[in-house]
């Protein structure tokens, strides 16, 4: 080991070190299915020399003549092979039992994949190898069937909306993340991707029932890397790259803008604003002002792992740094993570271990990622191109500059950033806005870890106790200088410096007993366990000081002494939240041919009402390996066939605390003796029967191996969620001051999923393909006595953009449809109802001809109809690995279809807001357009001010997420530096996106209320990276 460390120290200064030996290379495959095996460890017996097979199962190793190579891999029989000369040695590994022994994590344990009866998708470290994605959710996107992941935006470090098998609830329901056996609340961005060994997605209720009342939306199990006994392995993996926007919007230039504005004003009877539009040229490219075509991204991680018979360890440190492509000065993400995982055998029957990680994250994000109320993106889209970036004068004598010469924002040369006189409200010069946000940041520190103790008193019996904790601190640090951006956005009185600090502490105490035994051909495992969790210990405080002698964030400080009147503070604390559970699982199989799994979990949650403190979540699933039956004839078409069927029930306890009980609030006062008293009383009647939202799911699955090289898995499911929380409309004669909450609404998701894998070898070329696709349908079946529920609303319109209604998919877009644009008055006159009355008597040529949905002869609110689904119905992804000698290529693509995007980029209440290029195709006279109505100042005919088909666009896309080409250095060179592996690669993320959508990015997640609604979403970056990955 010392020698290796010394080697490490010298590698960069000397390549002269060398060792005499043979070079052995080859590929390792599995005897079961002929699959290439990545990650097989190869060592020279009796030495510390070792190597691993790469992503496509290939290895090279240098060994002394007549030495023995040891090939080992989990679930496989270890093989020892004597080598005498340099050679190609292809090794076939046998399963350590008769069956295929790949194991998957199933919650409170692992299970052999061959006997799994639920719907579990698995992603291994090797699949994610060298993928440059900052977040686990991003890494998982497109990897497995049934999981729809949409980043909320392209903001560095942005979270993602993860829907497993469609939307599970009308209320918030996201998957439960369990890291190394401990549920982690509050996001998993603290994890470094390089530390991840495997990710399992429990998709059906039969598998997820073991997590009971928090598992309705599915469970994602993440396992971090462990050390293996053997020599110290040091791995460095790093990349640096550059990012740029994939494309920009086609907005009007100054001449086009002025022309359309003039036309709109004249049409409304007002004078023209621009006397000579063509003299304005192209004007200011505001997108050019905010976008960075060369934003840096880099990641460096180094890990140490190894151990001996008694103890193993894995330690890593990683640093990730990404600049945003939009307003880079105020958009940046940095994360440092440290991890130490270790496991120790104290005696033959006693083990303990720990998994501990610390992360520090610092984010600068001075504007909203998808919001039309200001910020740099919305401003760049809506600002007029006529206004220049900066003024020509240092001290303009015109207003509004003249009155605010000391507070207007200036560029580096002292020239004031120009203030638009055409576009106001929240829209401001983005370059000036950036200056006011400089330095502002938020940060978090996460300390997440667990420690466990395992006792095996007798063979097959294991007692395990684990305590997991998460301690997190997070906060903000911001400075608001004196500034004047516009008449509606300024801070002219006092600057202010603000800090906040929040803390949360969660602990989980888990105890399990499991017993595994085989009688003859009967194998069973019983698991019993208890778990207690406390996740309500959250509080925060914040303070501001005003009027300090500072001009920027960087010279602001809390140390300045200001009068008490110039300070303010606030605080909060979360309500307590505890969970207490017991659970049991039985796994049984007969000869690995018939299997049965039964789970029951009883969860107690402090969120439930007193009549329902405990919820019971059972599941049962069964499997049958048809191909092992005697009647099955061995054939070349279907090599393996397993059928699975499962049913289970899960819950969602994500309800606000104390909704079940009646709390006291201010409900109206009275004046007695000239004093105004406040009256207190119960705000809403108690509903002691309030309970979890319940999701039950039926799953049928088929696993097959076909034509030796193909694997396929098909899943069909139906998921039904009932008792979704809503406020109950109770009769007013009850006299309550507010409505109580009840378990009311229900809906279902149905779907079909397909996963396909292919392995092929043609000479030296290895082809490995994995693909998946899913079709998901969703429908609301009950929303109580409500006619509909409003989801998203649209700017200043009284009409909502999307609603929830029985019989429709959740949050479907809702609005008006047009039949075309009226070309002439004759067409308006001819558009009549059955009685011959004009349907749109006040319309003018160029206005939309709206569809009279209810046929009542006029266009009213009841003529709105369904316009499309924001949630994709079809999702797919694939990974293609090609390997030829030392070269490898990975292509990973992912896409969705069946969804619509509501393009709300333009602010309707700002008449001077710029337009997309498509406005050039507006109606200007008969025959000019049948889809884009005339543009008139004030939009008197409401062509654009109501939600309509006009705003909806096809949201389908296919995106090549990653294209990577790598080269693994030949052994002859590695010998010299004592490396066991060295790979260099270049990688492109988001090389291209195929979509008809005209906004920045068709991928718009971020919660139900904004899902699929584009208000200027921060686009994903296209990044080019080069990296190296070496192990010694």
């Amino acid at each position, binding site marked *: 080991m010392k020698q290796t460390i010394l080697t490490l120290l010298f590698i960069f200064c000397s390549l002269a070190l060398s060792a005499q030996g043979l070079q052995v290379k080859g590929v390792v495959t599995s005897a079961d299915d002929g699959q290439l095996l990545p990650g097989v460890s190869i060592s020279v017996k009796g030495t510390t020399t070792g190597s691993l097979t790469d992503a496509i199962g290939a290895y090279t190793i240098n060994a002394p003549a007549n030495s023995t190579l040891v090939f080992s891999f989990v679930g496989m029989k270890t093989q020892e092979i004597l080598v005498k000369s340099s050679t190609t040695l292809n090794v076939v590994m046998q399963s350590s039992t008769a069956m295929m022994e790949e194991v998957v994590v199933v919650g409170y344990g692992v299970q052999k994949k061959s006997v799994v009866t639920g719907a579990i998708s698995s992603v291994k470290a090797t699949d994610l190898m060298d993928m440059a994605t900052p977040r686990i959710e991003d890494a998982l996107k497109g990897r497995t069937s049934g999981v729809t992941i949409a980043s909320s935006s392209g903001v560095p470090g942005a979270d993602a909306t993860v829907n497993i098998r469609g939307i599970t609830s009308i209320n918030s329901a996201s998957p439960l993340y369990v890291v190394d056996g401990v549920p982690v609340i509050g996001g998993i961005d603290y994890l470094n991707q390089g530390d991840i060994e495997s990710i399992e997605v429990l998709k059906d209720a039969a598998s997820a029932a073991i997590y009971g009342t928090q598992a309705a939306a599915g469970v994602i199990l993440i396992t971090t890397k462990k050390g293996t006994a053997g020599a110290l392995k040091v791995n460095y993996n790093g990349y640096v790259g550059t990012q740029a926007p994939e494309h920009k919007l086609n907005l009007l230039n100054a001449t086009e803008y002025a022309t359309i504005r003039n036309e709109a004003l004249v049409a409304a009877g007002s004078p023209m604003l621009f006397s000579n539009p063509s003299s304005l040229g192209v004007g200011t490219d505001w997108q050019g002002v905010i976008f960075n075509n060369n934003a840096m991204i880099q990641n460096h991680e180094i890990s140490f792992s190894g151990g001996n018979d008694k103890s193993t360890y894995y330690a890593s440190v990683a640093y990730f740094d990404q600049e945003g492509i939009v307003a880079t000065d105020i958009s940046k993400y940095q994360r440092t993570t440290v991890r130490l995982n270790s496991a120790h055998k104290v005696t033959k029957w006693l083990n303990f271990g720990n998994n501990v990680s610390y992360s520090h994250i610092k984010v600068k994000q001075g504007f909203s990622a998808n919001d039309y109320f200001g910020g740099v993106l919305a401003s760049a889209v809506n600002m007029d191109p006529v206004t220049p970036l900066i003024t020509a004068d240092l001290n303009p004598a015109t207003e509004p500059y003249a009155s605010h010469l000391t507070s207007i924002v200036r560029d580096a040369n002292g020239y004031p950033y120009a203030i638009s006189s055409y576009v106001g409200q929240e829209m401001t010069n983005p370059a000036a806005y950036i200056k006011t946000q400089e330095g502002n940041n938020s940060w978090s520190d996460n300390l997440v870890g667990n420690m466990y103790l395992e006792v095996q008193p007798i063979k097959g019996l294991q007692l395990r106790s684990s305590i997991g904790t998460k301690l997190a601190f997070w906060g903000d640090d911001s400075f608001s200088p004196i500034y004047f951006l516009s008449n509606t956005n300024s801070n002219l009185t006092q600057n202010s410096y603000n800090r906040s600090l929040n803390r949360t502490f969660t602990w989980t105490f888990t105890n399990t007993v499991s017993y595994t035994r085989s009688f003859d051909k009967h194998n069973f495992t019983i698991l019993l366990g*208890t778990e207690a969790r406390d996740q309500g210990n959250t509080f925060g405080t914040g303070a501001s000081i005003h009027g300090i002698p500072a001009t920027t964030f960087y010279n602001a400080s809390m140390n300045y002494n200001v009068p008490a009147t110039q300070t303010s503070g606030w605080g909060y*604390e979360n309500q307590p939240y505890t969970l207490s559970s017991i659970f049991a699982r039985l796994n049984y199989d007969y000869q690995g041919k018939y299997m049965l799994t039964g789970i029951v979990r009883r969860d107690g949650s402090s969120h439930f009402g007193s009549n329902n403190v405990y919820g019971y979540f059972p599941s049962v699933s069964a499997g049958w390996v048809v191909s092992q039956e005697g009647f099955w004839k061995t054939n070349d078409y279907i090599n393996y066939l397993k059928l699975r069927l499962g049913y289970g029930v899960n819950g969602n306890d994500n309800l606000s605390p104390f909704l079940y009980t009646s709390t006291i609030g201010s409900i109206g006062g009275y004046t*007695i*003796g000239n004093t105004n008293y406040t009256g207190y*009383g119960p705000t809403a009647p108690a509903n002691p029967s309030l309970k979890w939202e319940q999701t039950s799911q039926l799953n049928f699955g088929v696993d097959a191996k076909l034509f030796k090289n193909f694997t396929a898995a098909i899943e069909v499911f139906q998921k039904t969620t009932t008792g979704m929380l809503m406020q109950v409309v109770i009769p007013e004669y009850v*006299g309550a001051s507010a409505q109580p909450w009840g378990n009311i609404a229900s809906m279902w998701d149905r779907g079909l999923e397909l996963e396909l894998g292919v392995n092929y070898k043609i000479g030296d070329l290895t082809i490995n393909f994995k693909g998946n696709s899913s079709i998901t349908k969703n429908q609301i079946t009950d929303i109580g*006595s409500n006619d509909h529920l409003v989801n998203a609303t649209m700017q200043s319109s009284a009409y909502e953009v999307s609603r929830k209604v029985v019989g429709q998919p959740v949050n479907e877009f809702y609005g008006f449809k047009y039949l075309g644009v009226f070309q002439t008055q004759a067409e308006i006159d001819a558009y009549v109802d059955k009685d011959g009355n004009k349907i749109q008597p006040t319309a003018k040529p160029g206005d939309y001809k709206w569809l009279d949905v209810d046929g009542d002869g006029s266009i009213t609110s009841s003529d709105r109809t369904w316009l499309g689904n924001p949630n994709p119905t079809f999702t797919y992804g694939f990974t293609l690995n090609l390997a030829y000698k030392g070269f490898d290529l990975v292509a990973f693509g992912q896409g969705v279809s069946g969804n619509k995007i509501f393009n709300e980029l333009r602010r309707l209440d700002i008449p001077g807001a710029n337009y997309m290029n498509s406005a050039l195709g507006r109606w200007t006279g008969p025959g000019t357009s049948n889809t884009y109505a005339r543009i008139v100042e004030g939009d008197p005919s409401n062509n654009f001010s109501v939600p309509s088909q006009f705003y909806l666009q096809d949201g389908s896309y296919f995106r090549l997420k990653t294209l990577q080409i790598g080269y693994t250095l030949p052994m002859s060179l590695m010998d010299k530096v004592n490396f066991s592996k060295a790979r260099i690669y270049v990688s492109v993320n988001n090389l291209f996106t195929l979509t008809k959508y005209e906004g920045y990015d068709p991928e718009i997640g971020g919660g139900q209320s904004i899902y699929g609604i584009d208000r200027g979403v921060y686009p994903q970056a296209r990044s080019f990276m080069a990296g190296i990955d070496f192990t010694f």
Partner: protein
Amino acid sequence: MKIKFILYSTLFTGLLLTGTSCSKSFLEVSPTGEVLESNYYQTPDQVFSAMVAVYNCTEAEAGYGINWYANKLGPLNAAADECYAGGGSSSDMMAYQVWNNYTMTSANAISSKFWAMDYAGINRANILISKLGTPVTGLADADRDRYIAECKTLRAYFYFELVRLFKNIPLTTVPIATSDMYNIVQAVPDSVYAQIERDLNAAIPVLPSTVATTEYGRLTKGSAMALLGKAILYENNTARMADAASWLNKVNTSGVYHLLANYKDIFDPGNKFNAESIWEISHSGTSQAWWGPSDFRGNVYCTMIGPRSYSAVGTPDADHIYYSGWSFNPIIKAFATKIHNDPRYKYTVADLDSLVAIGQATYSGSAGYMNTGLFIQKYAALLKWKCVTGQAELNWPNDVIEIRLADTYLMEAEALVRGSGDLVRAKALLDAVRARVGLPSVPVTLDNIYNERMLELATEGHRWFDLVRTGKAASVLAFKGFVAGKNEILPIPLEELNNTKLIQNPNY
């Protein structure tokens, strides 16, 4: 080795069991920064706050829980022959408009506001009465009994409002359990009146005869006795007129009340809780209410009945300098003609057109829907009472007098006449009301008593009820579209019929 196994295994199993056995208490958590209903009503201050919430529902302005404007004078005046709905247009305050022209259905808003506000009050009273069944540390028995008596009086008041407006209503005297919410049926009106009498009979011995100035606004013995007499009168049973007269007599002869010398002083915000006021619903100009959902203490009705775009010209006297309002409840010219020669006319009607004519005011008559130029004076927003802080429109301090001595005089006289009682006393009561404004004696007939009520109590919210209970509504209100056999009561609000066992009133 074996021993160690057993030791560890036992320890381990012990841990498991501990984890399970203590789980129930582990799940019983208490909220922070919020009070559970089960932990409230435990100190005298908390009980007082709960009582304030019951009183809140008499004020009927707006509040956190019931967030709407629900003044009852506006629609009642619009319903009678005294006023039109008015406002800015035919759709301004639909609750007023649909009662003005008798186009109300169960779906338009008019009835639901009375309904909801009164039932909120009943529920709050029911809750507090049931909570006070358990002793409260530090609360004297006498104070507890007084709270209960106030709750019962208020509950009687709310039920009296409901039974005379809707006739067929649910009747409960305990908080309605979640499981019963949809199973309630309507009670027969007689049992509602019986409950009203029961509550008031229980409260009267307990309530104080008078209250200190710091308690102005809390109910007295006189309030409860007056309401009891009035309720019995409304039961319209000749055999019980003596009972009604007897309770009203107790009020009128209690010595606590006397008629004010000057009629105009009765409604003066500077003269609150005066000797003529028996049941007064307090308002305040100091609660600093702003637009948006907030807990109103001011009287918005004052603004509603003001002339639109009003400005004073020159120097009119302070009782005729108004705050510009929204022109609701303009007084019907025909009604003004009826009372024009009465000495109380000038204190009842704000004749803006005359003020304009003599050059003391300007206002926009055309901006007011159904404007007559005649506005309500008794609750007029006089500039001199404009609030110091807060939104002027929302913060008028004018109290609403629910029952006053002239009313109980006239009601006692009526009960005596109808019950063949002491006609000498009846005449004396009628004459007293007339003499106060300098009018001569008239014979004590029911017609004269009713005529006196019209003159004395104009625009105070009594006229419509009087017309209905005396059977005159169909003829007097025919010009507004009143339908006999239907419009004597309001429709049950439509949403109350969803999933419940309530039955709609006839002909709605």
